[in-house]
């Protein structure tokens, strides 16, 4: 990936680890035992956002629904307040960006690209397209247009983060690749909702949210396998990874490396544990599913 080798790494899922808050909580021990090989920032937008009204969390069987709503300081706040602190982390920094229009996204990428502390980008295309109302990342041609707009603005690697709420994520991956993406990552959360017990009121302040955690792992694995079969660029697999064995399944499905999200909530050092468990298992894993193909297609 543009000179950056992802293979076998453990990243964090964007928005599931705030390294700045974690350093306030755990002190410099966090830096000494940093759990990820690349740090992916929470998604930033051009303008500051408060995020969704609470409640923002709901526990499900083996999973979590969140409706955080991308609270962030906006481009200027990020560059001024967050980036200097993230630059102190002992690993390369990937900045996750989202725009409600292609222009907004272009502005973000162009500005962040100037900063050498930033090693790479992740484009979160899970936002609704302001013109069509559809989710940008569910539509191959819209995803391609977004990527084409961004590509000339940076020489840093660009990862496109795919949504699982699409009929055919592999088509979207192929479109992103064709438009110059250096890698794809998946899955983002699956749309979900819950009701306040005993009522007909949606629990989440935003009405609906996104499901993550072990509950979605089997679904994520299938999508990663389907995307890996079609895309030539590396795939970063995630969705419910909670152990080295779970991570290994994603590699078997054809992912180049994995990211850990919700499991970090249960175990802040989950990234390191999973990396350690994975290294213990890898020798056994020689041929991937991708190379062998399925029995029945």
């Amino acid at each position, binding site marked *: 990936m543009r000179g950056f080798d992802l293979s076998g790494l453990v990243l964090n899922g964007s928005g599931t680890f705030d390294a700045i808050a974690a350093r306030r909580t*755990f002190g410099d021990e966090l830096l000494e035992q940093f759990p990820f090989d690349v740090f992916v920032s929470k998604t930033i937008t051009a303008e500051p956002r408060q995020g969704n009204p609470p409640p923002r969390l709901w526990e499900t069987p083996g999973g979590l629904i969140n409706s955080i709503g991308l609270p962030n300081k906006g481009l200027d706040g990020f560059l001024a307040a967050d980036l200097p602190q993230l630059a102190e982390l002992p690993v390369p920094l990937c900045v996750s960006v989202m725009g409600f229009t292609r222009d907004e996204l272009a502005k973000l990428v162009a500005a962040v690209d100037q900063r050498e502390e930033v090693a790479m980008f992740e484009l979160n295309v899970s936002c609704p397209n302001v013109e069509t109302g559809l989710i940008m990342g569910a539509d191959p041609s819209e995803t391609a247009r977004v990527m084409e707009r961004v590509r000339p603005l940076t020489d840093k690697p660009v990862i496109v983060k795919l949504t699982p709420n699409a009929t055919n994520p592999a088509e979207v991956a192929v479109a992103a690749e064709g438009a110059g993406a250096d890698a794809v990552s998946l899955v983002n959360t699956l749309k979900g909702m819950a009701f306040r017990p005993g009522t007909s009121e949606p629990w989440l302040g935003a009405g609906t949210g996104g499901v993550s955690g072990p509950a979605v792992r089997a679904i994520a694995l299938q999508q990663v396998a389907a995307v890996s079969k079609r895309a030539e660029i590396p795939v970063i697999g995630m969705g419910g990874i909670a152990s080295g064995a779970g991570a290994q399944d994603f590699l078997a499905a054809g992912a180049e490396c994995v990211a850990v999200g919700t499991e970090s909530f249960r175990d802040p050092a989950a990234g390191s544990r999973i990396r350690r468990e994975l290294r213990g298992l890898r020798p056994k894993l020689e041929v991937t599913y991708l190379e062998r193909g399925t029995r029945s297609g």
Partner: protein
Amino acid sequence: MTLAPFGRRLAEVTAVERLGAYTVIMVVDPHQPEPGQFYMLATETGWGGGAGERPYLPRAFSHARAADGKLQFLFEDVGPGTHRLAAVERGESLWLTGPLGSGFGPPQGRALLVGGGIGVAPLVALSDDVDGPVLLGFRTALHAEAASLFPEQPKLVTDDGSMGRRGLVTELLREELDEDADATVFACGPPAMLEAVRALCAERDVPAQLALESGMACGFGACFGCVVPTRAGYIRVCVDGPVVEAAALETALVPGTGH
């Protein structure tokens, strides 16, 4: 604020006791927290499963006491997580992350400790460090047994009058403030009680530190899930609290949760 060691660790349970409507668990842990800080807890085995397949995430608990390398937690069985914790046996281990968040600050004037129900937990820890009257409200005499955790006998009210006076703890607080308003109030309890405390202290211009609760997934600022509204926008209860200045809040009621 005491920093937490990075990651979660296993802590051995050395005692489990029933205390009226509550359970008290004692675990071994060498790190000394500050009153008002909290921990994310889960059992090592059997966390989850059963009919509802929950709990999945760890749960937040204030330590009710920290001394001699041991932490004490006080809780009520209100859902799948506390239900599993109530079934813990001596010799089992708990997954523990913490101490987390920022605790109570020092008082201006005398300290008034005001607790409601399970909200007494962090006030027990505070009463080990700070002197001052302790005012407590409970649903029933059974719940009021938790008052025995304090070094000195607190003033009590119960909802049903089965122990102490019948009434609300804010009535006790009003009487104390009538007597001497050069005080700082430290309060923890259900949202409606905290809101009554906040409003009363605002009216009297008395500084108050409120220990808030909120549904949490991580406890260390990672998920942005535990926010509550303040005059300055949303804050994360886990890292910007759980103890907050009452003056920072428009209300201590929690939107959208029915509380």
